């Protein structure tokens, strides 16, 4: 049985989000928490990409000679891809700040335990 690529991607995205929330909520190591948070962001990005996927679609660049109707029926929808690019940049900067804070806290406390540092 061949699984539809889009459906498989959507399920993977949901799985990533659930694993990420679990890691962020229940793991004690701060680095593992951050990895879990990255999973959540990646899951949402994959969800967006899966939404923009079009089986057999073409790149959304309108070239001379293309019939407008053919192009509109075959080109993938570009908006989700543009959004994902922005989302990746935001996710990277958020993660950089979080890891920076964790480095400072590790130097101060000598631990990466969320229970010890954040009192959870």
């Amino acid at each position, binding site marked *: 049985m061949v699984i539809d690529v889009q459906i498989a991607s959507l399920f993977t995205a949901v799985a990533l989000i659930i694993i990420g929330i679990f890691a962020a909520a229940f793991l004690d190591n701060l680095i593992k928490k951050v990895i879990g948070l990255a999973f959540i962001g990646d899951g*949402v990005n994959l969800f*967006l990409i899966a939404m923009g996927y079009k089986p057999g679609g073409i790149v959304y660049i309108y070239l001379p000679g293309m019939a407008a*109707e053919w192009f*509109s029926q075959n080109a993938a929808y570009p908006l989700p891809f543009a959004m994902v690019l922005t989302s990746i940049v935001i996710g990277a900067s*958020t993660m950089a*700040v979080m890891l920076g804070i964790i480095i*400072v806290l590790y130097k101060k406390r000598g631990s990466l335990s969320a229970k010890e*540092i954040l009192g959870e």
Partner: protein
Amino acid sequence: MNLLIPLMVIVPILCALFLNLLHKKDRTIKTIAIVLALLLPALPILANYGLHYFGGYAPLIENPTLSNNLPSLITGTALNTFHPAITYSFQSAQKIFVFILGLVGLLAIFTSLYETRRPSGVYGYMMFMGIAALTAILLTDDIFNLYVFFEIAALATVGIVLVSNVKGNYETALKYMILGSIAAPLLLLGIALLLGVTGNVNITDIIYSLKNGLVNPQNPVLLMACGLIVFGWLYGSGLPPFHTIKSAIYSKALPSGAALIQAFSVFTFVALGIIILRIFSYLPFSQWVILGASLLAMILGITMAIVQTDIKRMIGFLAVGELGYIGIGLGLGTAFGITAGLFQAVNEAIITAFLFIGFGTVLYQTRVSDTRKLGGMMARNPLVALLVLLAGFAMAGVPPLNAFQSKLMLIQASINAGFPELGVIMILLSIVTFMTFMKAFHAVFLRPKPAELELKNEDMPKATIIALLVFLAVCIVFGLFPQVVTTYLQPLATSLTGGIV
């Protein structure tokens, strides 16, 4: 096209970058930051109402030259009216919100520059960047653009806390970021679902699709999108269950930073609340979700403020409680109620900043924020004590100050809408707010000075006194002449009551 509309966002971003470049050049930073900050409230006053399309890409319907050359496949459908570019909408309500945000920003920057011996370019950078992000959140008609600036505002908030150098700031900032890294992607997921159903991220276009039957409004995916966007709204504005971390964030920032961060929370609350009302008001439970979250914020925020011994934490919880009043106005769903709620938002942004900077004078002089260790500050600075007292009166809704007018309007609106119980709860919680404030005021200003309390700074900077006097003047003017604000807010409130607008 009015170029001042994008400049309201671009100018603070450029100011932020410029101040960061001047890091360690203290005197230059001081002069330039004040001059640049003056632009913040000035730009919304000078700008004309209208729309700004980034890149100049107006909807096809507004561009006949282009649309005449396109096939009817495009021009004959709804695509003709859709917005291809990120659109900023500047109307009367945005004018007053951006002006108040700019004013709070100006006074917070002004105070911070004179309360620190070595003004930090990085601190200025964070403040300006946060103001730019919130201005964009208020102006944008594109929900993904809103998400981007929502994240920038969260990073600027964390930056302000990190630069503040208050004990425990790193731990609180990390907690805030961990929660934000769950809430913000879920908000993005809500936006993705909206995009999946409607094919759009422009809010006006999404509403057009729902109103004209291009999309089935009863699609269950839209319910899920609504839930996820509401979750992002709760996080961004610090409503329960995020009220504890939000008040902790206020307490770990310098008073000037806390004054600005609370304004971020208020305007995030308003901007996302308006979007929820615009898109999802056709869902019968949306009104109850807003009312329920707001009621919970009011009760939890104000009751938790009573037991606080840290001044900044107490004001933080009071600020969360006051957000509830705004939400009650929005949730009532009537034009009068929404006007009252938006007026309360304007008042709260000013009053809470007034209180943070007012009580901040005590922190400046003593370096102590625990009310159990404070006392006798009235004798040290009677003028500041009077100003702080008036700020507390304003928050509790004592006439003739501004929150009296907005809270009275909210009570009238709740009675008119058939919810007199809400009016009773609001009156009772205003009394509790007054008691909480007076307890803290007594502990800090009226009680005899403890022997072990030392003054680290004898004199108050004149800039702080000037900032407090400006806040008081605004409170009195808005209290005596509420129509100065409400006339700007009524058009938006009226449009929101028409269901899908």
